């Protein structure tokens, strides 16, 4: 393959990807009003192959957003409403004793009945309402892309994307996600309350007879292609170094960490946080029709990549310190191009 051909092909490929993503975004926005940043973040999760956790008060369209996205990408979609009595088998599936017919001679056999996890896009609605035992059933699926049940490990479909939601207000009868499971989420997105004009448009769109129809614009193959192209995006050393420095700055024992981090943070971001920042920056530059990420891209995705990976200490919790504020301090403490 000659470089000239590859360059032209790649340019076309980049252009096509941008067009597809633009079309996908347009389809989602036919249903979802506003929330552009969340839409971009969810798309980022889709292209990065990471899972997303959406946090917001009820009624902001979290579930609708994910359902719309699933409709627009022509992928299998499953929704699991997490409740305290939800069992792991309800998610990953179970082996059932079934009466066979025909050649089997009518003997009863154990047959595995796949759970809702076996879908391309899984909506784990109100994930913090399930017990830790049930939550942990997702752990293997999210990390390995496989499910082990009845002594057998089964591979999940590709692409596989878990988009979970949780309500930050209701603490009664909820089970906060453990750190290990939180770390499996690529991004943690805050769904903000819509602005006034957005609310007006929401009311217009949802209180009339017109119901917007969403048409699928992407399929699994195309998404896989796009995921490969994302990972081919070149990253400069300075950007990579910046990502590492930002991550280290979230650790209270790092010399470069700001005073706020040193005082209120118990643990900083994990290496998965750095991966999320770099991949997120790559996808962000592609969404903006650029071919290499910059430090600004890293800054833009740092909060969503790190806010669920940084853990406050008791003092920070007691004083109600915002993790986003700590992350902003860490970003400010790391100069662009510094050593």
């Amino acid at each position, binding site marked *: 393959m000659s*470089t000239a051909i*590859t360059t032209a092909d*790649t340019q076309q490929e*980049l252009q096509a990807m941008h067009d597809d993503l633009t079309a996908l975004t347009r389809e989602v926005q036919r249903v979802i009003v506003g929330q552009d940043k969340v839409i971009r973040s969810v798309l980022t999760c889709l292209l990065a192959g990471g899972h997303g956790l959406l946090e917001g008060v009820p009624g902001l369209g979290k579930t609708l957003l994910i359902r719309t996205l699933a409709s627009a990408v022509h992928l299998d979609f499953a929704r699991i409403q997490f409740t305290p009595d939800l069992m792991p088998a309800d998610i990953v599936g179970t082996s059932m004793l079934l009466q066979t017919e025909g050649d089997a001679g009518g003997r009863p056999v154990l047959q595995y009945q796949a759970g809702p996890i076996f879908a391309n896009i899984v909506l784990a609605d109100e994930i913090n309402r399930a017990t830790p035992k049930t939550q942990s059933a997702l752990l293997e699926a999210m990390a390995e892309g496989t499910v082990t049940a009845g002594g057998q490990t089964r591979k999940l479909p590709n692409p596989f994307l878990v988009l979970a939601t949780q309500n930050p207000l209701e603490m009664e009868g909820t089970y906060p996600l453990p750190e290990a499971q939180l770390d499996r989420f690529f991004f943690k997105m805050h769904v903000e309350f819509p602005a006034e004009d957005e609310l007006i448009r929401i009311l217009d769109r949802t209180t009339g007879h017109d119901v917007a129809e969403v048409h699928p614009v992407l399929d699994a193959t195309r998404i896989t292609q796009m995921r490969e192209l994302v990972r081919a995006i*070149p990253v400069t050393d300075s950007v990579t170094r910046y990502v590492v420095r930002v991550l280290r700055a979230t650790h209270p024992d790092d010399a470069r960490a700001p005073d706020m981090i040193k005082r209120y943070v118990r643990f900083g971001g994990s290496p998965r946080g750095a991966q999320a920042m770099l991949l997120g920056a790559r996808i962000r530059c592609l969404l903006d029709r650029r*071919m290499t990420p*910059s*430090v600004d891209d890293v800054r833009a995705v740092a909060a969503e990549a790190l806010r669920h990976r940084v853990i406050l200490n008791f003092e920070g919790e007691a004083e109600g310190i915002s993790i986003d504020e700590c992350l902003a301090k860490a970003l400010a403490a790391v100069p662009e191009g510094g050593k």
Partner: protein
Amino acid sequence: MTAASRTKSLDRLLAAAVRRARLADAAWVLGRVALPAAMVIAAAVLLAIRRLGAPPVALWLCALPLPAALAWAGLRPHAIRRVARRLDTHFRLDDQLGAALELSAPRPGADPRTVAIITLVRERADALAQTLDPAAAIGVRVPTPRWTDAVAALAALAAWFVPPVHADPLAPSLSGVAIEPVGRTHAKAGIDLALAAPLRQSLKELTGAKDDPAAAAQEILDILDALERGDIDRAAALERLEELERELADADAELDAALREDPALLAEALDELGNALQQEEVTSEAGDALDRGDGDAAEAALTAAGEEAAADAASDAQMQRALAEAERRLAKQNDARDASETAKQLDEAERRLRGEEKQKPEDPEAKAEHERRLEQQRERVETLARQHERELAAQRKVEELRRNAKQAAQNKAGSAERKRQLEKLGRGMKEASKSARSSQRMQGAQDAVEEAKSFVRRSGQSGAGEDTRRQQFRKFDTAAKGQGQQQGKDGKGNDGKGKSTLLVEGKLGDGEPDGMMEMPGDGQGQDGQGQDGQGQDGESDGDGQGQGQGQGNAASGDGMGDGSQDPLGDPSRMAAGTTDVRVDARRGRGVSKAEILQDASQHGFATEPYRRTYEEYRDHAQSTLDSDAFPSAQRRLVKRYYQMIQGR
């Protein structure tokens, strides 16, 4: 097209941006740093020129910040990546230029699509570079003035109006003589002791032996050096000098107690003896040694001369003439310095003592005064009695020398008797020289300590007057060393049509001289006989009842007037019908002493004829100082005068 060739525009853009950044740096550093620094340096240099006498060429230092600032701007490293980031930020290019620069070479084994994207990135950056102007991103602006700039400007302006401290009114008459401003030659934090140069010269001469005065002289030199270097302060120097003075006083008391002959009489006799011996070649070496005060060398030289005379008839004739002349001069010396003068004074003092002792005042106050005068009179009688005894002893010694010389002259050359007489003469010379010299040296050391104390006390003085005094002295010192605009010409006097300068140390009170006065004259001193009408305020010792008290109260003058610009001198104030008569000095063959002195005053004191004349005069003064009871202040004055005019 290769990737490298595709980034030419980007490279050009970055190079232009770096140049622009250097220009901006230069503008900033010139305005913010170099200009205020130049003004501060200008202020400092102006102050140095006005107050410390720095050369005007030092003003070039003000220009130093300019090349330094330009060098900094030109050599300051500019990271290309940082420059690219600056352009990206300004043009909101999301680091596209910087990334293209950084992604110049893809890693080996990279995804072909990654390589392709890198190529695309660089092409895009290159295309962007063609449309960008670095001047928009990197502005060149002169920094706005701050209050520090105003302070620097005011400092430079204020320094401009600082008056020079060394305004030199004598500059026309000092042309050609290098006068170093005070403070420049002594940058160290010591004390300027330039005025002590003659004293140092005398002290170095004193150190040439192994006795108490030599050790004391060396100690004084060390103290002066330490003071000048700043190793000790004036208080410490004075303390050490006073300690030395006490030690010398003890040593002098011991010497005085051990002294049997009057050293002044002996010195005069030896001077005559030396002059007599110098007249003949065979004995000239012995005469020279006596003249130097080296008794050992004189004895050895006389012995050698005797042996030479024994071997050669011509030498013997010379020897006989020299000894006869010596005998004649010593006899004359003994006659001239008759001890009967002291005997008369002693008789008179004893008579007054007896008279005092007969008085019996009743009033207690008068009684105390009587006791004091009685005590003074007794001390004077004792002093005169001791002096009388010493003079008698010295006369006996001189008579013995005379007799030895006579007998040696009368005996036949090579005879044992002549040899014995010569040995006795040589031994007598040696002993007399030692006795005379030890007292002189001790007195010299004590005077030197006193003079050094005076210098140390005055060395703390400062101000324009003191600086002017030092400058004048340096000029005088330069002339004394013969380092003026031209060396003195041996024996060639100047007829005096040019301008000459007469340096007079004057304005003396009870203590040390505190100023030098420079009197411009017209250079005709050779021909005129000026009479100084104001030079009469010297010492006045009264006779009779006031004698004892008069010494302490009346010695205030220096005997040296202020000089007169009239070569004929000021007219007499006496109510008499006087007529000023100009008398020309008689010119004979050769060079007169007047010519030598005038030539030296104009061209320096380093010539050999001047040196000889000086030594003759100084020896005469020294013998007077040694023989008479001079007050110490006056003795120091005379010695200092001779130190000042000493050729070096």
